[in-house]
Structure formats: C-alpha cells, structure tokens
C-alpha cells in the first residue's frame, strides 16, 4: 500500500483536470460531457491552460507538492496530442510536480493509435485508464459504447507497446440482460490482459440519463423490493418489455465473484470497487478517501482545498468568457462551502471506510484532537454488534474497517456516521 497516507497532508496536493468532450454520450453516463467541434475544443484547451497558470499562483497552492495528476472527462483521449502536451506543460511549469508523480489519463478504446499513445508517454502521462465496461458486444451496444470487445483488446496492446506500464481497466456489473456467466467472461477478458489495476462498478441508474428514462422505475422497484418476484405485478407491468436488470441476489453474486476471481489472479481489493496488484493502487483516488487536498481545474471540476469544497462552473459559455484576472480571484467557482469540523469528521469516516483497510482512530485523534470513540462510540459499538464493522491491531496501529457483510450494505453503515 502506498505510503501516501504517511506524508504530511498539508504539503501534498492532487490535481484533477476535466476534459468535457465526448464523441458520443453513453446511455448511463451522467458526467459533465458533450460532443464539441474542434473550434470549441481549442478554445477550451486555451482557457484551461490559462486557469492552470493562474491557479498555480494562488497562495493556497504555493509551496505545495503535486503528487498526482488526473485527466478525466468526458473523453480526455479525444484531445489532439499537441493539446494534451500543452496542458501537461502548463501543469509542470505552474506547479511543483513530484518527479515520481502519478499522472493518469482516461482513454476510450478505439479512440487512439500507437502514435498518439507514444505522445502521451512523452508528455508525461504514466498511467492509462481504459473503459472496457463489458467484453460482450451486445452489452456494449446497449450501453451506447462506441467500441467493441475486440477494439478494446487492440487499444490495450497499443498502450502497452507505447510503454504504459501502469494501466487500469474499468468494468461494469448489474447491466440489463447481464448474467453471472456473461460477467465472468468480462472479468476473464480483463484479467487476461493483466492490467495493474481494475475498477469494477455496479451500474448506477442516474437521473437525467437515457437509462433512467427506461430503467429508472425498474431500478427503484428493485431497490425497494429486492427481487422481481417481490414486486407487485401492477408495478412490473410498466417495464415488462425491457431487458431485466439483475435482481439483488444476482447483483451480489457478481460482486462477490469479482472479488474471488480477481484475488485468485493477484488483484487485491483495496476499496469498495477498486482492485490492484500489490503496490499498484491508484494514488490519486486514495487521496480522495483520505481527505487529501485536491484542486480541480476545468469545467465542473471539484476541489477540496484548505478546508473548503468548491467547484468550477458547469457552464461552458461562462467558462470560456473568464479572464486570467477572474481565475486569479477564483471567479470560476460556485457552490463554495467551508467544511465545519463536524463535516470533516463525517468525511473522515464515510470516505475513509470505503478503503478496505478502513480508518485509524489514532489518526482521527491527531487530526481532530479528540478520540473517535468520544464522537462515534455508540455507532461503532452497534455496528460491531451487527457484525458490520471490525477492529484489527491495537494502540496506534488499531484500525476499524467494514467487514464483508458490512461492505454489502456500506451505505447503511456510512450513514450512521453523519452526526
């Protein structure tokens, strides 16, 4: 496990850069992304570079070391090589970036060739995240993905050949019409490629997406009743023509299968949905769960900096009109809220417990000046009695973490830590 946790928190900064462009929006996606012309893209990149330059001058970021950079989207791989280079150059010159910093970019299979991949390496990207989602072409089509299983394999190899030694593959379970068998095939496909890291997510039906239009009602009913047999017929009639989403038991099965299968192949689960070969965990994301400061740049990007959370405007129109002066004074930000101590404690728990290793009471005490027991004693006791939380180690090294059954109902557990 990376020793990021041991570093002085106030020193480290993570950077997140958002590239809100996609060729095509997948039916389940509720991220901030849309198709855009080359012109808009150029304008955006120019603006983003401006923002990077100005933010680098902010007092909150001066003197900080950037340990991780993450280019997310949308489809960051859509950018032209030159654009990607320009962005990373700006980062390098405006911030003090560690030599061994983890620099990740998300890429869509079938969206790049060897040449582009080599350019990325040259620009400094040392970790590539590819969205496979499913190895089954029929499922991919249903998801609205623009690649095929084969297209994915090709891209993966291209990336390896270009010199990417740290790769992640994204997978999805609980898809409409998916069975445990078809999911196993997806797992096999991914594991066979031997990426360093695998993220496996249960499909979430998000409001505002095309999936929600069709599957929203089915999902709500499944959530309420668990299995199809439990749903009253009158309700089921509303979506009887749709391919069914897996019921609760099947969902759980896929979920448990993931862990067992990947463990056998050398992947350790280190967070609810994330698996990695030893030492290959995603440092950037671990930062989120540890409460490390991060600065978000680009449209809609979120930040946690010096005790407050804020995000960049989601309006492209507004963003493109901002000036360097605006960026310097933070006018790109909306929804700023200063976290109270209570809120920071809550986050310590409901984010920290997402990591399989859980949270450390000694660290809590150091951060907040009081014991975890004094704040959460009752909740902790009850959850341990219910078999959802467990303890390991003692003294300084004591840790509290979600048990297997606890992980299955992590939302229920995490909600208990809201004061």
């Amino acid at each position, binding site marked *: 496990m990376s020793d990021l946790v041991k570093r002085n928190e106030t020193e480290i900064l993570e950077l997140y850069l958002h590239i809100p462009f996609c060729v095509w929006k997948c039916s389940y996606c509720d991220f901030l992304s849309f198709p855009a012309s080359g012109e808009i893209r150029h304008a955006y990149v120019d603006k983003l570079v401006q923002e990077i330059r100005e933010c680098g001058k902010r007092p909150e970021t001066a003197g900080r070391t950037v340990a991780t950079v993450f280019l997310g989207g949308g489809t960051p791989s859509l950018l032209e090589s030159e654009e990607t280079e320009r962005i990373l150059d700006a980062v390098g010159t405006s911030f003090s970036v560690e030599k061994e910093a983890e620099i990740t970019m998300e890429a869509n299979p079938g969206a790049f060739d060897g040449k582009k991949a080599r350019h990325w390496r040259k620009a400094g990207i040392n970790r590539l995240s590819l969205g496979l989602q499913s190895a089954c072409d029929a499922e991919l089509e249903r998801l609205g993905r623009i690649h095929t299983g084969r297209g994915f394999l090709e891209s993966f190899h291209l990336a390896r050949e270009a010199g990417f030694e740290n790769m992640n593959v994204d997978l999805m379970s609980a898809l409409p019409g998916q069975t445990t068998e078809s999911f196993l095939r997806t797992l096999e496909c991914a594991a066979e490629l031997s990426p360093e890291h695998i993220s496996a997510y249960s499909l979430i039906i998000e409001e505002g997406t095309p999936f929600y239009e069709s599957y929203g009602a089915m999902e709500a009913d499944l959530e309420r009743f668990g299995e199809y047999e439990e749903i009253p017929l009158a309700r089921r009639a509303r979506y009887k023509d749709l391919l069914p989403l897996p019921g609760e038991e099947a969902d*759980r099965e896929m*979920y448990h299968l993931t862990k067992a299968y990947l463990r056998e192949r050398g992947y350790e689960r280190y967070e609810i949905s994330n698996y990695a070969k030893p030492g290959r965990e995603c440092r950037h994301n671990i930062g989120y769960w540890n409460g490390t400061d991060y600065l*978000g740049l680009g449209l809609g*990007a979120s930040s946690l900096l010096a005790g407050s959370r804020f995000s960049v405007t989601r309006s492209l129109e507004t963003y493109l009109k901002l000036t360097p002066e605006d960026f310097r004074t933070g006018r790109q930000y909306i929804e700023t809220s200063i976290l109270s101590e209570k809120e920071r404690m809550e986050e310590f728990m409901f*984010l920290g417990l997402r990591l399989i290793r859980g949270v450390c009471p000694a660290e809590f005490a150091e951060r907040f000046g009081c014991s975890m027991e004094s704040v959460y004693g009752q909740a902790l006791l009850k959850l341990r009695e*219910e078999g959802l939380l467990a303890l390991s180690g003692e003294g300084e090294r004591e840790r509290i973490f979600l048990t297997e059954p606890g992980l299955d109902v*992590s939302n229920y557990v995490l*909600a208990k830590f*809201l004061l």
Partner: protein
Amino acid sequence: MAIVDQSKIRNFCIIAHIDHGKSTLADRIIEMTGLLTSREMQSQVLDNMDLERERGITIKAQSVRTVYKAKDGEEYIFNLIDTPGHVDFNYEVSRSLAACDGAILVVDAAQGIEAQTLANVYLALDHDLDVFPVLNKIDLPSAEPERVAAEIEDVIGIEAADAPRISAKTGLNVEEVLEQIVERIPAPKGDPDAPLQALIFDSLYDSYKGVIVFCRIKNGTIKKGTPVKMMATGATADVVEVGYFGAGQFIPCESLSAGMVGYMTASIKNVRDTMVGDTITNRENPCAEPLPGYKKVTPMVYCGLYPADGAKYPDLRDALEKLQLNDASLFFEPETSIALGFGFRCGFLGLLHLDIIEERLEREYNLDLVTTAPGVVYRVHKTNGEMIELTNPSNLPDPSEIDYMEEPIVSAEIMVTTEFVGAIMTLCQERRGVYLGMEYIETSRALLRYELPLNEIIYDFFDALKSRSRGYASFDYELKGYQQSKLVKLDILVNREEVDALSFIVFEDSAYERGRKMCEKLKEEIPRHLFEIPIQAAVGGKIIARETVKAMRKDVLAKCYGGDISRKRKLLEKQKEGKKRMRQIGNVEIPQKAFMSVLKLDEE
C-alpha cells in the same frame, strides 16, 4: 342603536349543499345591505379562518347583522346566521337553525338537489322554519332552473315557482332575495318583559373577554349586569357586555331583547360552561322551562394522538387544552401505548373534525404527531353484567369476560346518478349495509337509504363513494343507535412483537380481509432492514395473515470520487432525514404515517 321594533327583525340562515353558493350569497347580502361596500369585502368574508378557506367550508358558525331598506321604504334588521356545512357538525347546525325563524334554501341550478341539501332542509322543516328556495348559478350554461324548481317541489314539497333565479357571483337578482326575506321570513315573536330565555347557538373563546356567547333571545331582555345562569350546565355569571355582529367584528349595545340575535360576554373562562343548545336565563328571575333540543355532544370517532418526540408531550397537552378552549366538542384524555409511549385518546365528531384538529396541531402548534387509526365507540357487555364504552381497542377485556358487543349504526342517505346505483349498492353491501329503500329524484338521480355500521364508513367510505361514482355521489348520515355484532380485536405483530397502537376492532367476518390488507400495506410502508421482518395479523392469538419484508442484501454506492463527494453527502443526509419520521418499535423502524395509512383500504 334605537329601540328595536320586533316586527322589523328577520332571523334567518342559508342552507345549501357544499359549493352551491351559500357563502357567496351571504357575501352579496352583506354587501347589498349597507354594512360594507363591495371594495371592502374580502371574498367570502364569513369564512374567517385560513383552514376554512382552504377547504372551502365553514367550520365555525358566525353571524352577521345588517340593515336593509326594503322597497316598502322601511328598514329591516337582517340577522344572517351562518351554519357549518358538514355532516360531522349536525348538532351545531340544528342549534343554529333553532336560532332562526326562517331559512333560505340555495340550490345550484346546474347540480340540483344533493343529499346534504335534503338533510338540512328536513332539519329546518323539523324546526318549523319557513324555508324559501333560491336557484343559484343561473349564469352557468348548464343551469336548468325549470328542472331544479320542479325537483324542489317534488322532492321537498315546497313551492319553487317564485324562487328567485340568481347568480350570487355576479349579484344578478339578489335584490329579489332580499325582498323575499322581508316577505317570507316571519318576524320573531317573544315577550321582552318575560323572564329571560335565550338559546346559545355558538361560542368563541377570547383571551380578554372570555367566552363570547352567541345567542338568540326568545323571551326577556339581557344587558350589562344581568345575573345569568346556564340551565343545563348550571354555570352562573354576570353579564359584562352584550352586542351584535358586524361582519367580523363585535359591536356592543345597550341590551338585547326578545327576537334579537347577538352575543354576550360574562368573563366566563370555560367554554364548557356555555354549551351549544343550552338556555340562558336570569337566575334571579328564571324562566320556567329551558328551550328544547339541548343535547350533550358526544364524539363519534376516537384516535390516539402521540407526539413523535416523547419530550414534546407537555407541548401536545398544552396545545390540546388551547384548542379545547374554543371547541367544546373536542375530547381528550391521557393514555399510554407500549409502542408509542405517552399520548392522548381524543374524541371527535367525525373524521373531518379529526383532520382539522390534527392539522391545527401540526401547523399552529408546530407539533409532529403520530396518529393511530381512528375507531368508533363500542359497547362491551361483560359476563359480570358490566357495560364498558370502549374507545381504545387495546383496552378490550379478555374474550372470556365478554358476553356480547355492540357497535354504533347510522342511517345514511346517498344521492347518486342512476348509472352508478348498482356500484354504490355493491359498496354499501360490502360495508355491511342494510338496504332501507330508494327513490328516484328524476330519471337521472336516485336517493338510496341504507343503515350502515359507523366503523365501516368513517375511513374511506366517502372516497370509495366518490371513486365508484366518478365523483357524482354525495352522502349524509345520522347516528341511529347501537346494534349487537360479532366483533373481534385484530392485532398486528411486527417482527413478532405486538404493536398495540395498530390494534383495532373489526367485524369478525371481515377480519381476514382486513388483516391481509393491513399486512400488505405495512409491507409497503416499512423500509427494508438488515434482517427479514415478518408482519402478521392475529385474532385471539391466532395468526390469520402474514407478509414479509425481505432483508436488505445490498446497499452500496459503487463510485465515490472527488466530484461525487458533495452529492454523496446529500444522499446520506437524506437517508438520515428519512429516519426522523420513523418510530422505533423494538428493532424495527416504522414510518409515522404508517400508523394511520394502514386504514386506507379501498385502493381501486
């Protein structure tokens, strides 16, 4: 105010079915008789409570005195006495009628006669009031004044040929109504020098003046200083002030004498000293007999009211006490429930009354309440000869001690369009109704008469009636008496623990169906827990129905990265909020509203 000529007084009320235009007409009369100008009128000025405005009904009766200069050149004093319009408040209606000498019957010329119209007209006729009809809303394209006039003559038996055809909304022809009030409503009789005899037909509690008593003086005179006595309650006091009603104001005057309508105050602190229907007399020169018709008000429907937060119990008690100041028909007494803790058993005139009190408690007193399912008063005859009036099902004695039980029965009149007669008859049969008779009002409408157990109609009978008749049915009922019945107590067990607050008394043959439906409803209401929850209905310890709330097996948020954290927090907070409206019963969290909603049975 100068000495009043009794022959120039007209005491009357307006009777009508809901929405037929009673309040609008009242407004027009007030407007046109020189008390307020049109501009000063707030629409429907007599409905002066917000709640009333929302529901469009008059709850608290209030009266207005206006002055009309008639075509004959004389000035007449009109005392318009407003009456509540809902079946729950029949007694109040009857006492308001007793304060009048005549009544205007307003009928919607498009809708025609409805069940409630009839009920109130019969009530008026029973009080020997002269009733003259008025056809309203003739401006509507669907108005059929000829047909409705004929209906009135045929069904009620009063002359309707000369009925003024008006639009209360526009004021069209209302002048004619005013003239007819002068001509057709008789002047009051009564001797101002005889011993005081005044009818209390309503009251209002004011923190400064104490109870403001609305009365109609039948005989004698009352003024400041008169030593009065309420003949039924025995309360005594000395009159501080008398006066009459402006619109929304009390206007003091020297005295009120026979034939007049007004108010009196006497620093009376307790609204129960001045019960509606009682007779006020001069205790130093009392009248021989009280006025007839006084009845002790009895609640028909009881429920349990519990504060969601136990610490708020004193606040609930205070609030109920305050509400009771102005509402002599609200009953309450403390009770405890194993499931819900400390609360009150409350008695109401009916479900509407219950709704209103509940809403006021929540809105005006800011109380979060758990309400248990409302039930009627049963008579339990024990084997030892004792008879108990049962208001709380949990107090039902052991079956071995019970000889037999009785339940309250009402006689109901239901008006429905002929195409739905069958559907409504089926509904009444389902509710153990006994068919009494039917008459056709005209080819398109029928009046059905049924005897029904009160406990079959207090919950959702009205809603079922409306939905099965596409909104066209109306009904009115009156308590007839008690009848022996095979009744049992239905208990509900959640996670194998009996929840006393969910118990209720049901007709034996309906127990299975009710039990099954209640279990189904609870299954929908109770959220999934980490363990399976059996929900069972039982009678006498024997399980008769069962549902299961499956254990929650997966509840995970797959992704939580930088941009998701604020949203995740909101989600978790929402979950926490949701828990606030829950009641912990053993290991199970039951939503507060579940306690009442289990009785919504007629899901069509």
